Structure formats: C-alpha cells, structure tokens
C-alpha cells in the first residue's frame, strides 16, 4: 500500500470514528439505537468470520454464544449485583467456556461434524436455559433493574466492533492467520506442513465466541428484559452468515460492509415484508455461494488487485 493511500485511509477512518463518537450528542433516539445495532452486527459478523471465514469451518449456531452471554450478563447483574460492564466481560467468558465445551470434541475431527454440532447447539442451550427456571426465570424471562444506559452501551458496543475489526486485521496479517487460512485451503496439507490444526481451529473458535458473548450481555442490559426466544433466534445466526458471505468472507472489511449494507437494506426495504424475510436470506445464501463465493469485497480485490488485508 503506498503512503498516500495510507494517509487517506487513516484520515478517513479517523473522521468516521470521530463522527460516530460525537453522534449521540445530537442524534435522534432512533438514529442512536440503529447505529448501536449496526455496531452489534459488525461485532457478530466479524466474529463469525474469524472461525468460518478464516478456517472454513461453518458455525450454524453462533447465536448460542450471544444468548449465553445475554443470560450470563443478566443473571450477574440481577442476582449478583455486578455492574453491567463487568457483567459484559463475564458474558464473553461464558461464551468462551461454552465454545471450549463444544470445540474440544468437534474440532479434533475434520469434516462436517463441527457444522452439525453447531446446528444443534442453539436448540440445546435454549432448552437448558428454559429448564433451569430457578436461575433463568424459564419461559417467563428475566427482567433487569431499570437503568438508562443506552448511550454508554453505544460507546462500549462501538469499541467492541472496533476491537473485532482491529483483531481481525492483526490475525489476518499474522502467521497465526496464515495458518488458519492454510487449514481452510487444504487441511491435510496444513497438517503435513507441521501446523497443529486442532489447536489452531480451537483458538480461532474461542476467539470467535468472545464478541457474541459480550454483545449478548450488552444487549441484555440495553433492552432490560430477555427470554429464551428473544436471545436464541436462529435468524441471528442466519443474518451473521448472510452479512459475512455478502461482504466477503475471510476479509477484514467484508463483514463490516455486509453488516452495514444489509442492516440498511433491511430497515429500509425488507422491514415491510417480514413474512418472506427468511426466504430472501436463504435465496441470498444460495445465490452468493453459487455466483459470488468471494462476496463483494472479494470481487473488488480480484478485479482491482487490492491487498489481501482489506
């Protein structure tokens, strides 16, 4: 990347960050809330990209980490009286522990085992959360003490999104990231080159669980009330997948592009057609896989010889 383009991109990102930082001072409630949601989707899509975009192991159940983070955060705030920022970190830890529990048996194996295990994970965690009523309130849900913290959560969620974008950049430009992408391209060859594929996949998976866990806990605090059907919907996983595939999997900015683009389209157009929403998403997945497997950013990279670190 030449120096002038570097300066330009640096100045551009700085002005975007500054604009977003002062936005809540004059933005409308709806605007702030929507931007907060975009931050959340960037964090979720960026996290899914870490495991599925980089290693090629598809996670069909990433919303389970969001949900477990939401419940861990909410329980710590209501029952243990923790402050919400610490509870948000604990939400991330809870998600990592769950990822370890599933990743350890499933990622030792090559092939579709991991994907199917993740497909079932969400339903199972939801059933368990509903079952342990004493702790979670069961189907009645869990109410958090009222607090108007949307603006603070706006900044924390924004920080989370930035951390995940920066983390993805650091990973993609590191030897660790190269090894992950080697696993994606040819796992047997990666093994033959001496890469400890199991531990690399597991590390990527654990990292990919942190973001959804923290985001879940933050969302729980922001909304003040959670129940099993509100924090474990399959639709959240589907949306993450669509965003990353559309933007470009395995890239730094692809998930950001996908999150912003799809969120805006969703708010402006598809909100009017709620009944066919999943049908559209299913069709997008099929179309992107068949026609544009690298996503929008991947196409641009190929066409304009952009660096891999975009």
């Amino acid at each position, binding site marked *: 990347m030449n120096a002038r383009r570097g300066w330009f991109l640096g100045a551009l990102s700085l002005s975007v960050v500054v604009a977003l930082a002062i936005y809540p001072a004059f933005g409308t409630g709806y605007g702030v809330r929507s931007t907060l949601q975009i931050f959340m989707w960037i964090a979720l899509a960026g996290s899914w990209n870490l495991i599925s975009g980089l290693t090629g192991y598809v996670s*069909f159940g990433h919303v389970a980490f969001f949900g477990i983070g939401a419940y861990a955060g909410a329980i710590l705030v209501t029952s243990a009286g923790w402050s919400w920022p610490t509870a948000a970190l604990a939400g991330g830890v809870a998600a990592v522990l769950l990822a370890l529990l599933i990743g350890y048996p*499933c990622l030792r194996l090559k092939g579709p085992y991991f*994907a199917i295990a993740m497909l079932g994970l969400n339903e*199972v965690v939801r059933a368990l959360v509903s079952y342990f009523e004493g702790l979670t309130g069961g189907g009645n849900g869990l109410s958090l003490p009222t607090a108007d913290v949307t603006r603070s959560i706006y900044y924390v969620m924004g920080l989370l999104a930035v951390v995940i974008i920066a983390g993805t950049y650091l990973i993609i430009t590191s030897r660790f990231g190269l090894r992950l992408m080697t696993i994606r391209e040819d796992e047997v060859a990666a093994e033959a080159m001496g890469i400890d594929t199991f531990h690399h996949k597991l590390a990527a998976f654990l990292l990919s669980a942190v973001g959804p866990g923290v985001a879940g806990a933050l969302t729980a605090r922001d909304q003040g009330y959670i129940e099993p059907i509100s924090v474990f919907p399959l639709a959240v996983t589907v949306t993450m*997948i669509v965003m990353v*595939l559309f933007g470009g999997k395995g890239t730094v900015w692809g998930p950001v592009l996908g999150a912003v683009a799809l969120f805006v389209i969703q708010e402006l157009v598809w909100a009017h057609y709620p*009944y066919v929403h999943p*049908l559209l998403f299913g069709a997008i997945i099929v179309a992107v896989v068949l026609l544009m497997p690298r996503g929008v950013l991947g196409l641009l990279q190929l066409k304009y010889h952009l660096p891999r670190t975009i």
Partner: protein
Amino acid sequence: MTVVLTPEMVGQVLISGVLSGALYAMVALGLALIYGVMRVINIAHGPMLMLGAYVTFFLYSRTGMNPLLTVPVAMAALFVVGVVLQRTLVFRVVDAPELSSLLLTFGISIALVNLAQNAFTSDLRSVEYITGSWLIGNFALSKPRFIAFVFAAAMTGVAFLFLKATRLGKAIRATSQSREVAMVCGIDVARIHLLTFGLASALAAGGGALLAVIVAIQPEMGGVWTFKSFLVIVLGGAGNYPGALLGGLLLGLVEQLASLFLTTQLSEVVAYVLLVLVLLVRPTGLLGGRQT
C-alpha cells in the same frame, strides 16, 4: 430423584425404542446415502421430511385419502423435488469445499421452511387416523407408532435390497466407494447423483408422512431431524449404510431410556450429549468408517 427400574419399564423402553428407532434409521439412511455418494451433508434433509409430512396431511384432509396410502405419494413427490434440487443447485457444489455445500443446503433449508410457513401457516396440524394402543400383557403398544414402525422397517428393507441386489443399487454403492473408478466402469455418475438425491429425499418424505400419523406437524419440525439423522449416521459410522440401522435403533433406545429419568423437554439435550460423547470417544462410529 431415584427411579426404580422394573422389568415392565425396561420392556416398555425396549418396545418404544425399537419403534422409534426404525423411523430414525429410515430417515438417516437417506442422509447417509447423499453423504456417502456425494460427500455432501444435506442440511435440507429435515425440511424434505417436513414437506413429506405436509403431502400426507393435505391428501388426508382435502381428499380423505387413507394416510397410509399417501406414504408412497409423498415419497414420489419428494423424489421429484430432490431430483430437481440436485439438478438445479446441489450438483454445482458436489466437488466444491465443504463450506459451499453446507452453506448452500443451509440456504435451501431456511428457504423451504419459510415457504412452508407462508403456504401452510405455522399452525400445528395432525392426522387423526388411528389412535390408542394394544395391550399385550403388561406392555402397551401404540397403534400408530407400531404401524409407522412396520412401514419404516419395510421401506428400509426395500432400500437395502435395492442397494444390495439391483444394478442401479450397485452403481450407487460403487460411486460412493470411488467416483473415479465408477466412472471408468461406465457408470453415469451425474445420473447416479440425481437418483441418490431423489431416493434420499423420498426416504425423508416417507419418514415425514409416517410422522404425520404419529405427532402434530409444523413447518419447523425438520430441523431436529437433520440433526438426529446426522447423529444416527455418526453412531453407526459415516458412510456405512448398515450402520444407519444400528445407529437408529440405538438413538431410539437411548432417548426412551432417558425419558424415564428426564422430562421430554430435555430429549434433544440427550441426543446432543450423545453426539458429543461419540465424537469424543469413538468418532468413527460403532461399525467403523467407510465400507459399503
């Protein structure tokens, strides 16, 4: 909580386990066929089962057709749907990385479920055909479940005979052993892929049609069947077709046994724990890896 196991309870568990196991085996055989022949895990397998269930429901409620006679109709209809899906979409990802085929069939799956929700609504529907149980000694034998068992066992048997004894069946097994060698032997591999996807979808649809007689159906019923079918083929050994039978029976028995100790709310958790344990201890399955 202590549960005292009486011989009657054990017998009842065995009966119910075998009854539901045959259905698992039949549906899972379909998933195993697609995986064996194309190395594709069809996430849309459960939604195909759901469509089969709706064929039975609508034929029964609109035309009053005997539900058991609708089973072959559902299978034929979904055979066609399977062939069309393979011909238009799935064949493009057969040689692609696993990520592509998983995502593609996942996309198909959510689209099918949403189509069904729009076309059929999300209401629970049921086919009230045969109800009640036979009492044999101390054991109860649910009539609809027993009939479903007989059908499922018969169709699984026919499917195995087809694979074992007919030329097409042999061609399918040959393709799943080695596509290149099959091709060299003059087998039209693309046609075998079509046939396999059609057959697999028909097996799923048969399972769905029988399920419609047993339980209430709704568009999202399929998801758990994709998962359980996969569990069954992992239990038996992926790519090992007779393994699907053993895996199905085992899953049926374990679920019924667990229902003695746990609420039915947790039955999916039991299946899940079983999958994780098998992957941890013996990922090649009980009968070992790929033989056909």
